[in-house]
C-alpha cells in the first residue's frame, strides 16, 4: 500500500509525468480506435524518443498506451464492425449487431465500463501479486496446458453465431483448416503454400476479420441499398442501466479471472484472452444461441478480459523478463534503451519505476470511464454519416489495416477474398465468427499440441498426467457431447 501511494505521489507530483500520462492515455485511445494504425504503431513511432525521457517515464508511457489502446479499438468494432485492434475482434461479434438494433450506446457504454473494471481489477491483482505468481504461472502452464485451454475454448466455438450447431461446427473446422496454411509449427515445412513465399507466412486472423466483418458488411448494406431495403441504423446514446450491469456481474468476474490468467502466460496475451472469455460467456450462458446476434454479455466478456490481460501481462515482463506480446516486447526495448533489463531483479533495482508504472496503469484504467463516457455521447453520432459515404471509408481503412499488420500484400488479398466469402457465408447461416475462432485458436493450439507431443515423447496419455490439462480436456469433451446431444434431443421431442 505504501508502495502504491509512493508511486502515485511520484506520478502526480511531477508535471512532466502528468503530461506524459495524459499524452499516453489520449494517444493510445486514438491509435487504438483508428483501424489501420494501432497501439503498436504508436509504440514503434515513439520508441526512439523514449531515449530522451527518464526510464520511469518511458515505461510508464508504454504501460498507459497499453491500457488505453486495448480499450480504444472497441468503439470502431461496435460502430462499424471494424475492430481497431485484434484484442477487440470478439467485441464486434455482438457489438455491431447491437448497433444495427439501435443499441450502440449500450454496447459502447458496456465496453467502457467493463474495460475499466477489468483493467482496474487486473491492476490491483498485479500489485498484490508478487513475482511469485509469475514463477508459478510459468511452471504450471506448459504447452500441454495451453493446448488443453485452446481445446476447451474450441469446444463451444460452434455455438457462436451459426444457424445450426452443424453449420457452426463446419465453420469452426473451416477455420481450423485455414490455420494449417503456411509453415507447420513442428518442422517448418510448407503446407498449402503452393510455392508462394507469401502464403508461407500463413493466413492471419486480422485480415480475415476485416474481410468477414467490415468488407462483407459493405456488400450486405450495398445489396440492401440496391434493393431499396436499407434503413440507416438508429442512434442510441443510452448508457446501460445499473440493472443490466448487475445481471452481468458474474460474467464480468469470470472474464477478469480468465483475462488475468491469459495475460500472465507468455504467448497468449490480450487477444486470446478476449476470445477465450467470449467462448466462456457462450458456454455459461443459458441462451448461447443469442451470441453473435447482439448479446450484451458478449461485449462485456470480450472487453473485460482484454483489459484484464494488460495488468497481468506486466507480471511475466517485469518479474521474469518474458514479454507476452508485441507491445510488451517494445517495452523491453524501452528498458534496454536505458541500459536496463527487466527481470527478477527489477523489483529491487528499480523499485520506484515499478510502482510508478503500476500506479499509472491503475489510474489509466480509472480514467477510461470518464473518457469513455464522453465518447459514448459523441462518437455514436458518426452513424449519422450516410452509408454511401461511409462505405468507401470503411473499405479504405480496412485495406490499410490489413496491410499495416505485417506489411505483406497477401493480407490485403485475404481480406477481400474473405469479404466476398463472408457475404455468402453470412447469408447461408454459417458463422464467420466461428471461422475466425477456429483460425486463431487452431494456430495456437496446433503449436502447443506438437510441442506437447514432443515433450511427452508422443504419448497422448501424458495430457492426463497433468491435472489442469486433464480437467480442461475432459470438460471440453463433455461440452461437445452435450452440445451435440441436446439439439438432437430437442428435435426429437419436437417431432414427437
Amino acid at each position, binding site marked *: 500500500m505504501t508502495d502504491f501511494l509512493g508511486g502515485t505521489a511520484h506520478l502526480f507530483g511531477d508535471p512532466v509525468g502528468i503530461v506524459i500520462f495524459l499524452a499516453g492515455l489520449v494517444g493510445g485511445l486514438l491509435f487504438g480506435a483508428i483501424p489501420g494504425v494501432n497501439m*503498436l504503431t504508436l509504440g*514503434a513511432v515513439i*520508441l*526512439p524518443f523514449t531515449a530522451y525521457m527518464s526510464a520511469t517515464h518511458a515505461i510508464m508511457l508504454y504501460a498507459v498506451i497499453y491500457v488505453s489502446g486495448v480499450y480504444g479499438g472497441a468503439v470502431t468494432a461496435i460502430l462499424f464492425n471494424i475492430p481497431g485492434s485484434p484484442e477487440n475482434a470478439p467485441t464486434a461479434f455482438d457489438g455491431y449487431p447491437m448497433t444495427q438494433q439501435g443499441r450502440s450506446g449500450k454496447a459502447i457504454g458496456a465496453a467502457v465500463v467493463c474495460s475499466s473494471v477489468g483493467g482496474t481489477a487486473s491492476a490491483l491483482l498485479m500489485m498484490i501479486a508478487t513475482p511469485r505468481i509469475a514463477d508459478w504461472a*510459468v*511452471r*504450471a*502452464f*506448459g*504447452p500441454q496446458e495451453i493446448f488443453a485451454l485452446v481445446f476447451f475454448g474450441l469446444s463451444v466455438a460452434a455455438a457462436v453465431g451459426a444457424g445450426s450447431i452443424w453449420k457452426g461446427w463446419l465453420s469452426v473446422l473451416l477455420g481450423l483448416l485455414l490455420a494449417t496454411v*503456411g*509453415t507447420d*509449427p*513442428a*518442422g*517448418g*515445412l*510448407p503446407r498449402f*503454400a503452393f510455392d508462394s*513465399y*507469401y502464403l*508461407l*507466412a*500463413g493466413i492471419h486472423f486480422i485480415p480475415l476479420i476485416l474481410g468477414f466483418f467490415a468488407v462483407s458488411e459493405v456488400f450486405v448494406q450495398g445489396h440492401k441499398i440496391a434493393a431499396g431495403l436499407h434503413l440507416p441504423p438508429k442512434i442510441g446514446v443510452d448508457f446501460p442501466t445499473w440493472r443490466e450491469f448487475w445481471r452481468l456481474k458474474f460474467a464480468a468476474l469470470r472474464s477478469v479471472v480468465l483475462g488475468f490468467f491469459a495475460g500472465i502466460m*507468455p*504467448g497468449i496475451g490480450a487477444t486470446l484472452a478476449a476470445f477465450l472469455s467470449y467462448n466462456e460467456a457462450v458456454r455459461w450462458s443459458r441462451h448461447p444461441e443469442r451470441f453473435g446476434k447482439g448479446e450484451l454479455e458478449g461485449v462485456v466478456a470480450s472487453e473485460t478480459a482484454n483489459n484484464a490481460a494488460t495488468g497481468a501481462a506486466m507480471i*511475466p515482463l517485469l518479474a*521474469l*523478463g*518474458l*514479454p*507476452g506480446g*508485441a507491445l510488451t*516486447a*517494445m517495452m*523491453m*526495448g524501452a528498458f*534496454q534503451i536505458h541500459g536496463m*533489463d*527487466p*527481470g*527478477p*531483479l527489477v523489483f529491487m533495482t528499480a523499485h520506484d519505476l515499478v510502482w510508478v508504472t503500476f500506479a499509472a496503469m491503475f489510474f489509466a484504467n480509472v480514467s477510461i470511464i470518464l473518457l469513455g463516457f464522453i465518447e459514448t455521447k459523441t462518437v455514436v453520432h458518426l452513424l449519422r454519416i450516410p452509408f454511401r459515404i461511409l462505405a468507401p471509408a470503411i473499405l479504405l481503412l480496412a485495406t490499410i489495416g490489413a496491410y499495416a499488420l*505485417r*506489411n*505483406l*500484400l*497477401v493480407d490485403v488479398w485475404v481480406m477481400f477474398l474473405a469479404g466476398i466469402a463472408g457475404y455468402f457465408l453470412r447469408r447461408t447461416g454459417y458463422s464467420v465468427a466461428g471461422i475466425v475462432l477456429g483460425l486463431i485458436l487452431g494456430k495456437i493450439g496446433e*503449436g502447443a499440441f506438437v*510441442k506437447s507431443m*514432443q*515433450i511427452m*515423447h508422443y504419448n497422448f496419455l501424458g495430457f492426463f498426467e497433468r491435472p489442469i490439462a486433464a480437467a480442461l480436456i475432459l470438460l471440453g469433451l463433455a461440452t461437445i457431447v452435450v452440445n451435440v446431444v441436446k439439439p438432437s434431443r430437442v428435435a426429437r421431442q419436437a417431432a414427437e
Partner: protein
Amino acid sequence: MNRFGKQLLLVPAGIFGMSLMTSLPAAEMMKKPGDFPQRPITLIVPYGAGGGSDQLSRAMASAVEKVVGTGIQVVNKPGGGGRAAIPDFMAAPADGYTVMEHIDDAATLYASGKIKQNPAKDWMPLAIAQVTFSQIYIRPDDKRFNDWDSFVKYAKANPGKVTIANVGNVGAMERVNMLFLEKELGFKTQQISFDKPAERYAALIGGHVDALFEQPGDVRKFLEADKMKPILTLLKDRPSAFANVPSMKDIGVKFEPLLRFRGFYVRSGVPKDRAKYLEWAFHEAFKSADFQAFNKKKYMHLIDSYRDTAGAKRMIDNAVKTYKKVYKEIGLTK
C-alpha cells in the same frame, strides 16, 4: 571535420575489442553518390518486433541514420521462418532504398533449396554486424545434471528423452550443430522448436523442457539473474566472458561449430556507387560508440562480428557449402 567524426575520436578505442578500429585515424566522410540517399531508406526485418534481428536492426538503423543523414524506416515482415519478407524485397526497385536484414538461415534455406535466391549472389551483403556462438543452457537447480558431463551421462542413460528447446527448424544452424554434437559423443535428444523467444525461455525456466540451445546475448539477463546456467560453449576455445564453461576443445569434439550471423543486404542490381556508399555507411555505423555499446551487451565483442561485402560473401559461401554437404550426409537433400 564533421560532428560524427569528432564523436568517433572521443570513443576510447579499447571498447571495440577488434583490430578494425586501432589503425583508423579519424573517419573520413565518404562523398555521397549523386543525391543518394535523398529520402528515407526502408529496412525490412523478416522477423517480428522485439527479437534479436529486430533489436539489431533498430540499433543499426539509428546508427546509420546519423551517418547518412536521412531516416531509416524499420519495417517488420515476419512469417514463414524468414521467408515471407523475401518477395517484397525482391519486388522493390534495386535503387539502394530498400535494405533487408537476414540471418544465417538465408544461407541454410538456400542450401536446402527452400529459397531460390543465393544470398551471396542474388543479394549483395552490405555488412555482417553480428557473429555469435551458441551455448547450451540448463536450469541451475536441476537435480539430474549440473554440468556438461553429467548432462551427457543422463542423456545416454535416457536415450531420446532429454528435451532441448531451440528456434530452428529441420536443417537450421541449431539442429545441425546438435546433430554433429550428438553424433560425435553418441547420445540422442529430442529437439523442440519454439518460434517465440519468450515461450522458449519460459519452457526452460518453467521446467517444461530440460535444456535450451541459444546465443548468450539473447539470454544475458537470465544468466545474470541465475535463472539459466550455460554448460557448453559451441566454440573451439573458451571465450573470456565464459571462462568457466567448457568449450568444444575441452569435451574433445572435432567438428567446427556453425555460427549465427546477422547481416544487411541490398539486391545485387543496385548501382555500384550506391552499394559502395551503403557499405561504407554501415561500417561507419558499426564502429559508432552507440552501436558498439549495443553489440557489447549482446556479447558480440567476443568474436569478430564485422564483415564487409567481400568478407560477408565469403562467409555466406562457406556456410552454403558446409550446409549443402551436411544435408547430403543426413539425407535431407539429394
